[in-house]
């Protein structure tokens, strides 16, 4: 239950204890959010414990006497065209996908929030420079941009992370900038300023605590988006280099055997959809819990 612990400390860090309890109460009251949280915890634990469940060796070891075996007790999800165990590939592939998605979400959130805060706080020329550059940057569709970066730098973990970070940080710049601009005009900020608080104090104790909820909700939902996106890239052959398993890659390989071994397609599809859906459920629950007036 290591995962739950991590979850609650992140919640602790941005609201006072009483509010944390209140947020947790609202979060746990929503059925969807709880289902999402439980599902995601199960997935996360399975992926974290992948090495104990089935060794990585099984995911890459080719065994041509076992090609395209149907699901059985020995191979839960069957074997692929190279005789590799699909269950092992699913677990170890998910591990790669999820770690790229989490890291890319984190780095894009940090980069984007910093730029957004600078833009919103300083305003003027800095703001228009950042925002105009961003407009240009956003004119290249994400998929093409990541494809170009991965193609130019070569497909590996670091470059994939880099490409996805660059594709996703733009969301945060706009979000954080509008939050900062919006919050700076709130009455309580005005009141704090009238009461003699300096800029540092206003930013630390009024603007950041109020902006953090929106950022966290967005970040949660972004993890799901990046998982879908990363699997699309690996489906197109622009993900991790083979023989590393990945969900998208498994699907593009499964396509060949659609007629004879359709289960090779169903399990990774289900894995992608269930993971993304469970994260979205948590994200929606978190949004309602953090901002009850959005929910009528």
């Amino acid at each position, binding site marked *: 239950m290591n995962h739950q612990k991590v979850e609650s400390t992140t919640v602790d860090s941005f609201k006072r204890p009483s509010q944390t309890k209140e947020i947790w109460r609202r979060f746990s009251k929503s059925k969807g959010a709880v289902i999402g949280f439980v599902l995601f915890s199960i997935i996360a634990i399975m992926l974290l414990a992948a090495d104990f469940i089935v060794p990585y060796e099984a995911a890459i070891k080719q065994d041509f006497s076992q090609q395209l075996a149907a699901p059985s007790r020995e191979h839960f999800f069957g074997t692929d065209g190279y005789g590799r165990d699909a269950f092992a590939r699913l677990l170890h592939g998910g591990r790669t996908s999820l770690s790229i998605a989490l890291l890319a979400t984190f780095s894009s959130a940090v980069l984007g929030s910093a730029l957004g805060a600078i833009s919103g706080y300083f305003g003027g020329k800095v703001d228009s420079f950042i925002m105009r550059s961003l*407009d240009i940057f956003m004119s*290249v569709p994400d998929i*093409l941009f990541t*494809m*170009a970066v991965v193609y*130019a730098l070569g497909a590996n973990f670091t470059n994939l992370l880099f490409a996805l970070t660059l594709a996703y940080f733009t969301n945060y710049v706009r979000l954080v900038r509008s939050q900062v601009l919006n919050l700076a005009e709130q009455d309580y900020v005005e009141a704090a300023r009238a009461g003699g608080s300096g800029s540092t104090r206003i930013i630390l104790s009024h603007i950041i605590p109020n902006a953090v909820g929106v950022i966290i909700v967005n970040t949660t939902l972004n993890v799901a988006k990046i998982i879908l996106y990363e699997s699309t890239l690996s489906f*197109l052959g622009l993900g991790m280099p083979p023989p590393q398993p990945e969900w998208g890659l498994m699907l593009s390989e499964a396509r060949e055997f659609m007629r004879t071994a359709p289960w090779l397609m169903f399990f990774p599809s289900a894995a992608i959809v269930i993971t993304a859906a469970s994260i979205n459920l948590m994200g929606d629950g978190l949004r309602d819990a953090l901002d009850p007036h959005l929910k009528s």
Partner: protein
Amino acid sequence: MYRYVIKRLLFLIPTILGVTLIIYAVMSITPGDPGRAMLGTSALQADVDAYNAALGYNLPFPIKYFNYVKAMVIDQDFGFSYLTKQPVFDEIWPRFLETLKLAFLGVFIAASVGIPFGIYAAVKQYSLWDTVPSLVAFFMAAFPSFVLGLLFLYFFSLKLNLLPSYGIGSFEHYIMPALAISIPPAAQNMRFTKSSMLEAIRQDYVRTARAKGAAERTVVWKHALRNALLPVVTQIGLSLGVLIAGAVVAEKIFSIPGIGSLIVDRIAYKDEPVIIAGTILISICFTLVMLLVDIIYAFVDPRIRAKYSNTKG
């Protein structure tokens, strides 16, 4: 207002230049030179050098970039494909039109399914018209286009034998790819429209309209909907990015000769001129659509109209 439009049109120039620069710069990191790629591994180094010199490959980056843009703007000249040795523009243009057809079909389906369901779900909140479509949209938002495409292929072509699995021969060929790319953005549009509409319904002017005794129809259609649809315009523009990603995979899955599948195929051959030109062409098209969305938004939203006619011009 026209000053706003003109300003936006003028900003198109630096945007397109910037977009081209980003793509050109990223792609120029890759190793290899055009002479070697065009003449083959067996060519003499002297010939390769001469070819590169004639092409201006050894010039400094800014000059190379300038020459590229100049040729692109004046002659629609994107160089020659390393793979087929044909002019790039002749290769990508028909495929670009094919992608455009698919993408517009996708936008149309995504908007015409997503928006009405979103409105209805908000108006009839908590009824079956809300819960069922909302649940479906929620799950559809977790499906990437390529998973949908593969599942459609399996069920409708392989199992039920209803639809052709590849090619562009007839209208039927477009059903699966268009659905695969439009379902995820349709789900997004539905969710977005619903929350926008719910927000609008809670506004004071809607309460006022109800209080003065306006019919529910009038309240919904005249007061709430007109305001709720404004952000939806932007959302449709934004969903285009998701749609382009979908189009690339759908073209791959259903063997549609579009520009996305062309780029992906040529990545394997390191055919840079085609990759760069294809990426630039789609990005310019994307930019133009986003511009159109912004201008439409400014025209329909009186608040923005007022803001720009007073301050920024």
